[in-house]
């Protein structure tokens, strides 16, 4: 597993058997806390259902203490094995993690096995330290999870102690659907295309920057857009001898269109076509 040297955000790069590298976003402790709270509610519901059933069944048989015994056994099983069993049989997810779009996996991107699922959840207790006693009773203590929080803060993959022992991490499974191509209809680009020389096609790295900018520009107001676009725009104005009062935002949009959208003839269509893995209907 290699990592980008320039990694600043919480994306983790894994190399998979298909011999490509792709990125996951690791889950933050607070996303995981939300999943944990959902799981706690479900656990309480399971125990509640067993409790009511045993009340009805054994209460009617006048054997209430058997019912309470069963309740305590189920409490034990649910408290210690709920997470582990779900993560084993649901491919690294519990109901809470599923609803939050999280998944447990090994640090190398492969799936976890049963032993890892059980152990990382046994060690949840250690992550819960220090405990705060509730109502002055030492038996009823609330885990603060501070130790787990410190552990997640001190490594790149936000692993708590249980994760460190098992070599696992929790990632976010993004479920966004295929997006539309960015529309740049709000600015008039035709005059800028005329001003730009015909061979002004952005380089690969500039195209990448442009696409990042255009992805995000709809979140900004006009003043902020021109402030951001100015840094690249001023360089481009000098390079292509454009009028200095040109709208930098529109200039970047025009170049973006040239890089990704324009219908002008490709200079090396045969070469591009040969690198494509599958035959496509691309006789455009």
């Amino acid at each position, binding site marked *: 597993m290699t990592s980008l040297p320039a990694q600043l955000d919480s994306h983790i790069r894994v190399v998979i058997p298909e011999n490509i590298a792709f990125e996951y976003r690791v889950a933050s402790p607070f996303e995981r806390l939300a999943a944990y709270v959902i799981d706690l509610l479900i656990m309480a519901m399971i125990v509640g259902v067993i409790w009511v059933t045993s009340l009805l069944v054994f209460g009617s048989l006048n054997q*209430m203490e058997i019912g309470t015994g069963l309740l305590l*056994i189920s409490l034990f099983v649910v408290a210690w094995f709920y997470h582990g069993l779900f993560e084993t049989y649901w491919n690294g997810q519990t109901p809470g993690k599923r609803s939050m779009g999280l998944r447990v996996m090994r640090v190398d991107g492969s799936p976890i096995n049963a032993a890892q699922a059980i152990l990382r959840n046994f060690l949840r207790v250690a992550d819960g330290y220090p405990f705060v006693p509730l109502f002055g009773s030492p038996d009823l203590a609330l885990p603060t999870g501070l130790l787990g929080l410190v552990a997640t803060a001190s490594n790149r993959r936000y692993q708590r102690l249980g994760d460190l022992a*098992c070599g696992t991490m929790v990632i976010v499974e993004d479920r966004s659907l295929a997006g539309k191509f960015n529309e740049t209809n709000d600015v008039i680009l035709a005059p800028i295309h005329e001003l730009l020389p015909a061979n002004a096609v952005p380089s690969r790295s500039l195209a990448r920057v442009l696409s990042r900018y255009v992805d995000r520009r709809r979140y900004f107001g006009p003043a902020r857009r021109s402030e951001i676009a100015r840094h690249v725009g001023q360089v481009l104005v000098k390079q292509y001898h454009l009028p200095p009062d040109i709208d930098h935002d529109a200039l970047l949009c025009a170049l973006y269109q040239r890089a990704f*959208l324009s219908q002008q003839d490709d200079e090396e269509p045969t070469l591009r076509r040969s690198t494509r893995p599958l035959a496509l209907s691309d006789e455009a």
Partner: protein
Amino acid sequence: MKAAELIESRSQQWQQLEQCCLGLERYGKGRLDAKGRTEFASLYRSACADLALADAYQLPAGTVRYLHQLVGRAHNQLYRSRRFAYGSWYEEMFQKVPRRLFHDGYLRVAFVVFWGGFLLSGFLASKWTPVPSYAESVVTQEQLMEMERSFSEPIGSSDGASGGEAFAWGFYVFHNTSIGLRCFAMGLFFGVGGLFATLFNAIYLGACFGYMTTQPEGEKFYEFVTAHGPFELTAIILSAAAGMRLGMSIVSTGGRSRGASLALAAKQSLPTMLAAVVLFFLAAVIEGFLSPSAAPYEVKAGVAMISTLLLLFYLVVLGYSEQPPDEA
């Protein structure tokens, strides 16, 4: 060909892969059928190829991000978690674990700490003690009174029809096994946490045992604890040893990196911990059903002897071996 056209021509396949993922993520009805699964494989491979060539295609950043998450999501459906391999667990539990325990230095430490603390604390709390108020200072006065009260009636005198045994069984499974698992998890703190938990349990139990020698109810107390004692006390020691192995692996790494050393110790200590859980379960069964019953003392002592022999068989007969190679 420009990126926009490429995306347009490929996005249909990507959306198809998305639908396959949705189908695989579902459980029960609506799960992806066999035909969909064969398509899934080829769709996944082509999405991988698209991602690998994203740079050559000059795809915009948003699309690359989308491809990353799509491939990641499909990858998680293709490679699924492995479930319990029962065959290898048999080998682990009856061959590897006893051999590992036989050579386990942490088990010896936990054994000495527990029994040493237990006997010392028992002596200090007993009627021969040099420190008369020792028991009261370790265990609170109310708890001692509570203990006396619960053994004031003859064992087996309460009517057995109410199902009290099942309640007791459930209580002991929940309470004692949780203590053991917590003892294990605390071991992660450089082994010191597990040592502390072991010593605490030893001193507390020792004080209770010693204190009962000063009381008239003592005889009933010892009759009660006889049958389940071997399994339960061994289970506590096993969980402490498993936790200590975990914690000490961070301190003494044997030449590995601390992370790798911890991972190896975790893999080795989990089966030990599960063996302890099984012992806690057995102890709870005995403690819930046999110990409080009116059965003669000979039966209870017999159960204690049989369980001790079973433990010795597991640890010594199954465990007697050369030093296993992964312990070096």
